[in-house]
């Protein structure tokens, strides 16, 4: 809305912006973002326009999870309008409520709920306006398809458009408003085409790689050849004389060529004469397990019950094993790119980041601006899987555009995107379990060593869901030769891999079928439900020990959603052929079933890559296998047939569907390879260890 706070015509619903998260410093102290009213902590969440169409605003971004459609479905249902009449504006700091970032599968749970309340508030306001206009009691009125009519006399009706006319009406979200009960859902829970599908199949959808603005220069930035490399000298004289080169920039740590085309910039970059300090030999791939163990610090007990000593004394059998996962690359299809444009002291940046407001704050601080002088627009984002929270190219483009006095684009090549983005931390696990002869877990001791400096990554999903009375799970932070960051489910997929393979080993040790063994040790009803559904639908054939059939199963929990995944595969030489996967997901109330299934399928394919072939190799700070010719990811010829069952209870609040699918899949595959071959696979990726 305009900066004086006077909204344009329409029915506007305002509400708290931060949704319980701490608002950023300074944000609401004054006019902050265009969406926020002056000196108020309220933001506009929803507008019913004078023509009766609806716009919802959310600080989330669309990077493949289908959130634009999911949110539109929730709004359409509460406001009783056709889905086609709802537009959702996302990720533009000038237009949407502040948001911490799109991660942790919180979009439906938090923002979706807020928008439902906003839409229900708007519907109630329209009902009251109609009661007045039609001179009927509000209780006699009902809203349907964008109009309000009398329940007793259908001829007495008025459309939302006629109710609003040219007026500007503002309401606050009624946070206690009654939401539509599920029995009355007409849009939610049904299959819908994504509202942004057509833009995607016609090439009209604009990603940050696609942003081109008038007068824009193409920037190519000098990158360090190995982690920690120090630039000693650079001679730019040849590069400066290359065709199309406008400027060669050197500002502190930033060295870049600005040219009229991407190719001219890259060609000149290759002619910079650089000298780097001698690389200090550091570590390589094979040193990782030792580094993770020997550098471990900050032990943190995530789960503790009973006494391990007592548990292991009571056990009739004890099993100890070590598990390992390497670094893997998120490798989204769209390499990071940003375009920055200055207009006086106002900066606009297009950047495909999961944290437009975070980048907005960073840029304001870097250039000493008010946050309202910066606008970050996250257009469509070509994947990210957690890794597009940091967005260095947005900073580089902004600095270069300021120096050049013209808009500048900086885009990573594929190799740069794999080398300079963060990776999922490598991790090592030591697990010791104690159990009785009749197949009851009594003791569980797990030490999890995750590389990197962000302990919360490794803590996620580290707790055991099994009933053992004596438990201690300890996570550690270990040194990391490569830079680590968020990945789908953070460390939960790694933690689940170790735990669920170990559980399978105990089942084999006590001579029980893996499903039966898990059920004996799981009292949590939601775990039991997903496990039973997955086993049934998959056609699980109970067997103690390796049956040679190639079936495997594992369970998991992430972002509050429960999942069990069963797989069927074959092994031929060093190649694993994954034929069929059955997943049962309980994510509570499902808003968009096809969207949820699509996310589970994608998580399974992604997790399959980490199970079978993905690993970043490195030596002395250099990544050795950047690029898709050297780093194998699953292709359509690798992909299994996937069946996803949604088995949650509609009365349970919605939880995330984008991440749980990845947490059990690597263990299920490893367990199936054991079932097929009789050999345990405790290290990923499995195909490197097959003989």
């Amino acid at each position, binding site marked *: 809305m305009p900066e004086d706070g006077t909204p344009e015509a329409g029915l506007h619903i305002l509400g708290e912006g931060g949704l319980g998260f701490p608002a950023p410093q300074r944000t609401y102290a004054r006019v902050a973002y265009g969406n926020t009213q002056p000196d108020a902590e309220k933001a506009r969440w929803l507008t019913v326009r004078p023509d009766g169409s609806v716009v919802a605003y959310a600080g989330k971004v*669309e*990077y*493949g*999870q*289908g959130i634009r459609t999911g949110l539109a479905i929730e709004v359409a249902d509460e406001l009783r309008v056709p889905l086609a009449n709802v537009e959702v504006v996302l990720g533009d700091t000038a237009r949407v409520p502040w948001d911490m970032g799109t991660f942790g599968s919180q979009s439906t749970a938090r923002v979706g709920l807020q928008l439902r309340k906003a839409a229900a508030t708007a519907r109630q306001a329209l009902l009251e306006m109609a009661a007045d206009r039609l001179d009927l009691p509000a209780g006699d009125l009902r809203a349907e398809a964008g109009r309000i009519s009398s329940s007793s006399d259908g001829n007495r009706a008025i459309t939302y458009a006629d109710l609003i006319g040219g007026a500007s009406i503002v309401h606050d979200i009624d946070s206690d408003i009654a939401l539509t009960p599920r029995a009355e859902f007409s849009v939610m829970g049904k*299959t819908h*085409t*994504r509202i*942004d*599908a*057509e833009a*995607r*199949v*016609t*090439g*009209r*959808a*604009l*990603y940050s*790689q*696609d942003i*081109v603005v008038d007068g824009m220069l193409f920037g190519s930035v000098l990158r360090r050849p190995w982690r920690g490399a120090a630039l000693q000298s650079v001679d730019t004289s040849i590069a400066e004389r290359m065709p199309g080169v406008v400027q060669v920039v050197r500002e502190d740590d930033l060295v870049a060529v600005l040219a009229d*085309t*991407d*190719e001219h910039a890259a060609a000149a970059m290759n002619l910079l004469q650089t000298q780097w300090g001698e690389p200090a030999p550091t570590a390589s791939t094979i040193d990782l397990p030792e580094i993770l163990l020997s550098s471990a610090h900050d032990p943190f007990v995530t789960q503790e019950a009973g006494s391990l000593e007592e548990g292991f004394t009571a056990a009739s059998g004890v099993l100890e094993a070590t598990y390992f996962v390497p670094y893997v690359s998120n*490798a*989204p*299809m*769209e*390499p990071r790119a940003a375009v920055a444009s200055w207009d006086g002291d106002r900066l606009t940046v297009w950047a495909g980041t999961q944290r437009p407001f975070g980048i907005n704050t960073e840029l304001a601080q870097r250039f000493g601006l008010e946050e309202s002088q910066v606008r970050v627009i996250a257009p*469509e*984002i*070509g*994947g990210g*899987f957690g890794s597009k929270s940091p967005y260095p190219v947005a900073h580089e483009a902004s600095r270069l555009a300021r120096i050049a006095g013209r808009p500048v684009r900086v*885009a990573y*090549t*594929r190799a740069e995107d794999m080398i300079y983005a963060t990776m999922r931390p490598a991790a090592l696990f030591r697990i010791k379990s104690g159990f009785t002869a009749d197949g009851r877990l009594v003791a569980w001791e797990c030490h999890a060593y995750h590389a990197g400096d962000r302990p919360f990554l490794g803590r996620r999903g580290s707790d055991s869901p099994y009933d053992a009375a004596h438990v201690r799970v300890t996570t550690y932070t270990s040194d990391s030769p490569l830079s680590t960051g968020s990945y789908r489910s953070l460390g939960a997929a790694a933690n689940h891999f170790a735990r669920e393979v170990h559980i399978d080993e105990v089942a084999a040790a006590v001579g029980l079928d893996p499903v039966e063994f898990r059920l004996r040790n799981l009292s949590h009803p939601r775990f039991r439900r997903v496990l039973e559904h997955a086993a049934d639908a998959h056609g699980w054939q109970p067997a103690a020990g390796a049956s040679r059939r190639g079936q495997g199963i594992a369970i998991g929990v992430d972002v509050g959603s429960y999942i069990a995944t069963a797989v069927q595969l074959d092994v031929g030489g060093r190649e694993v052929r994954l034929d069929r996967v059955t997943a049962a997901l309980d994510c509570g109330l499902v808003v968009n079933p*096809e*969207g949820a299934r*699509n*996310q589970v*399928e*994608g*998580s*399974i*394919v*992604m997790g399959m890559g980490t199970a079978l072939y993905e690993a970043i190799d490195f030596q002395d700070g250099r990544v050795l296998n950047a*690029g*898709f*010719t050297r780093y194998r*990811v*699953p*292709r*359509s*010829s*690798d*992909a299994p*047939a*996937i069946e996803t069952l949604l088995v949650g209870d509609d009365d349970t609040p919605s939880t995330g569907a984008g991440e749980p699918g990845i947490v059990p899949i690597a263990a299920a595959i490893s367990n199936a390879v054991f079932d097929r071959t009789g050999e345990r696979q405790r290290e990923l990726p499995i195909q490197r260890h097959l003989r």
Partner: protein
Amino acid sequence: MVTIFINGEPHDAADPSRNLLSFIRFDAGLTGTKYGCGEGVCGACTVLVDGQPLRSCLSTVGAVAGGSLTTIEGLAPEGALHPVQQAFIDEQAMQCGYCIPGFIMTSVALLNREQSPDRAQIREALSQNMCRCGTYQRILRAFERAASPGDVTHA
């Protein structure tokens, strides 16, 4: 100076060695064709040259001089959809969607070559493209729906 036709329109290029993908995206302004790897292995940059698929990231304007290119923007007349595009919508064969133009062009190229390809041919053709969101099952279904619109029974 060379001239190429993109979606029926002539485009002049001063430098025949200009990378074809960059020319299409930045000079012709058709950004539906994507950069994914620059090595010809992900398929995001696939365009049709006289009906045949080409990895534009590995080609130059000069190499296709005089040729007739089709990009995702030119697959169907303004306001209409090609059956393959419609099938991708119907099967919800997309997540982030970045790879989808390339998959659609590869699919159209295969259908230009083979009226009713078998499953092995479809898998072989589509495995030339990458989707990191992992929507392969849906992409295969979309292809099959487009190839034989009458035979598809699932919703």
